């Protein structure tokens, strides 16, 4: 993974000094509330319902064990002993003290971490595929480019006061595990007709109040043009994005208003002045970035005998076998497997992880996965490089720590934002709904029978829980001061991305498990043998679901 040199270290250290001074001036009354606002936001700090909330950046979801231990320490010492994995692969603390935030930042800087631009109207943490570097369907590892984008976007002087927040995701595989279609900019590593790998660049995707699927701005550019092309898009947005209405300020609105053609033209025109300029990436800069993401010291393992041994273990212990099937994926190196640690145990808020669990994950990473771990946008964690022969032992340790719920990719692997329990923008709570659904569908055989299914919950229109791209999406709405939930069906986050369609009038919290039950039973009744939930939905449309859910009780 990327390791700081003196330059990187100086940048985060100077940031701590700067923010310490800003916090002092704010507390002394030299900075007004309004002036301090964007400064603290760009250091990850925002004030919420109960306390300040702080977001810590995990660039493209990659962490080492020392960083995990530091996070455990921070949650214990400055917070209440747990952290929350967000849908941008970051960590969030729910209870820090404003006065202590400079100290937290200093602790983070000591392990090459920060909270830079995790909030505010600037370029946010770049996200990527949690299986980057190990996935079998990878065209090229996206992480070197994520790191190049991270550095470029960190304190970019031109783009620190954009009309609105700005999110970039990079994907380097056949399947899109980084939801690039719902980002302000999506970058995809693709070959051109001659087979040379470059970038396809999309813009104008987003969730929130006006969800949109991103449009292709360029089908292919050479790698060296990555940053100048991004700058051209950002500049067009910075100059022309709406600033009069917060709800119309995202780039998706600009792309829509201008039309993709005109937007592309404006970008290409701006690009002419930037192209081949100083931000052009020389080959050695790309090579340097790549040098941080070389293979760890994999052993040469006889894949087929390792597989056979694993199959035998799975047969002997079906609970292990089940976990193996659901929570691990194949690896491009024979004899290895990538493991997802489920942060979706019923009773725990989706994505929450305790200080002790963080420490255990650090230990397990050291023991089994070259000292590294990852966060996922589905709010789980990953150990990406585990030898197949170690899986059984790893599973036993995960089980003891409550991290082995075998539900990855299934109904109860719910994505949920913090919602009304923590977030001051919320219309409704999300966590109790997630828990009620998890409790209602606790029969693993039933959820496996349903097949892979994504259920996403957001507490308001801001869509932090990505409800639009959940196959089942739940959105908290306010109806005359009461909390209600709107359900949508048919969202899809992958390459053929689509947005969910609203089922109909919203429901009370208590009714939600029943509503989900009806949706699921409609699917079970209508599906053909091979069909997933999404397949059936696409074939039969929304009407049968609607009829069942809103049918009058006899």
């Amino acid at each position, binding site marked *: 993974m990327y390791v700081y*040199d003196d*330059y990187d270290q*100086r*940048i985060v250290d*100077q*940031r701590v000094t*700067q923010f310490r001074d*800003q916090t002092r001036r704010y507390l002394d009354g030299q*900075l007004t509330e309004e*002036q301090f606002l*964007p*400064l603290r936001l760009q250091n990850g700090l925002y004030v919420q319902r109960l306390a300040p909330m702080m977001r810590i950046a995990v660039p493209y979801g990659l962490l080492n064990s020392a960083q995990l231990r530091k996070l455990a320490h921070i949650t214990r010492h400055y917070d209440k002993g747990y952290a929350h994995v967000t849908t941008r692969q970051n960590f969030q603390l729910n209870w820090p003290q404003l006065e202590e935030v400079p100290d937290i930042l200093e602790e983070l800087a000591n392990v090459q971490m920060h909270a830079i631009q995790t909030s505010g*109207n600037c370029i946010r943490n770049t996200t990527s595929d949690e299986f980057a570097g190990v996935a079998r369907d990878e065209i090229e590892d996206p992480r070197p480019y994520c790191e*190049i984008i991270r*550095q*470029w976007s*960190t*304190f*970019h*002087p*031109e*783009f*620190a*006061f*954009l009309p609105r927040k700005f999110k970039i995701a990079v994907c380097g595989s056949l399947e899109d595990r980084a939801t690039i279609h719902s980002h302000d900019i999506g970058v995809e590593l693709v070959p051109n007709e001659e087979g040379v790998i470059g970038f396809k660049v999309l813009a104008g995707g987003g969730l929130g109040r006006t969800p949109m699927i991103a449009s292709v701005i360029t089908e292919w550019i050479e790698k060296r043009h990555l*940053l100048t092309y991004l700058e051209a898009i950002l*500049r067009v947005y*910075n*100059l022309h994005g709406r*600033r009069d209405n917060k709800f119309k300020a995202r780039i998706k609105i600009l792309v829509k208003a201008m039309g993709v053609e005109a937007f592309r033209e404006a970008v290409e025109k701006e690009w002419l*002045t*930037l192209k081949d*300029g*100083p*931000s052009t*990436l*020389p080959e*050695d*800069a790309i090579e*340097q*970035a790549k040098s941080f993401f070389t293979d760890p010291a994999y052993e040469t393992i006889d894949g087929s005998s390792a597989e056979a041994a694993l199959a035998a273990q799975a047969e002997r212990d079906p609970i292990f076998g089940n976990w193996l099937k659901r929570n691990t994926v194949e690896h491009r190196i024979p004899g290895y497997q990538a493991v997802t640690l489920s942060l979706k145990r019923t009773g725990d808020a989706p994505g929450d992880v305790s200080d002790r669990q963080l420490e255990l994950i650090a230990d397990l990473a050291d023991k089994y996965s070259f000292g590294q771990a990852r966060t996922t946008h589905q709010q789980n964690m990953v150990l990406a490089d585990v030898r197949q022969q170690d899986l059984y032992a790893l599973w036993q340790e995960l089980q003891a720590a409550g991290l082995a719920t075998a539900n990855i990719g299934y109904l109860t692997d719910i994505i949920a934002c913090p919602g009304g329990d923590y977030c001051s923008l919320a219309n409704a709570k999300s966590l109790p709904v997630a828990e009620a659904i998890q409790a209602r569908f606790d029969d693993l055989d039933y959820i496996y029978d349903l097949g892979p299914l994504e259920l996403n919950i957001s507490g308001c229109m801001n869509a932090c829980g990505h409800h639009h791209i959940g196959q089942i999406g739940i959105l908290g709405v306010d109806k005359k001061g009461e909390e209600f939930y709107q359900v949508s069906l048919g969202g899809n986050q992958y390459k053929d991305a689509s947005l969910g369609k609203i089922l109909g009038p919203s429901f009370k919290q208590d009714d939600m498990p029943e509503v989900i039950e009806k949706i699921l039973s409609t699917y079970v009744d209508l599906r053909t043998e091979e069909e997933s939930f999404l397949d059936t939905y696409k074939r039969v449309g929304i009407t049968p679901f609607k009829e069942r859910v809103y049918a009058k009780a006899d």
Partner: protein
Amino acid sequence: MPKLIKGAEIVNDERWKAPQPDAETVSEGVICTLAQWQALDDKAGSAVQLEPGDDVHSLLPHLQEIELIAVNFPVFTDGRGFSYARELRENGYQGELRAVGAFIRDQLHYLSRVGFDAFQLEDESQLEAAIKSLEDFSVHYQASISHPLPLFRRRS
């Protein structure tokens, strides 16, 4: 007489007065609005102030003649001025580029990086302290007007 930060010092601006948008003719020593400036027959030695939303491109053919371009920040969170500055410098503007308005000292470092070389803060009592903010960071990742070589070119 407004006070400015220029070249990391506080100076009095004896040369230019703030724009008078309603004046029919612009007197000597007064900064033009963009509309007034466009109406000038002779743009040599002129001074113009851009507001958010103004089109920078009309200035580009005259960059060698203009003496001062001021960019107004009516609210500090409107970041369009950062792009104006960079575009002007990228297109070869060498004269004074002055930030005016409601920007705050914590933005000085970014402002100087995109090409501003003069800063007229609304609150003059802040000037002394603000000079320090110019030096908030000694290393930068990306190319900018003040430091054209991005870090990746200096590293490799």
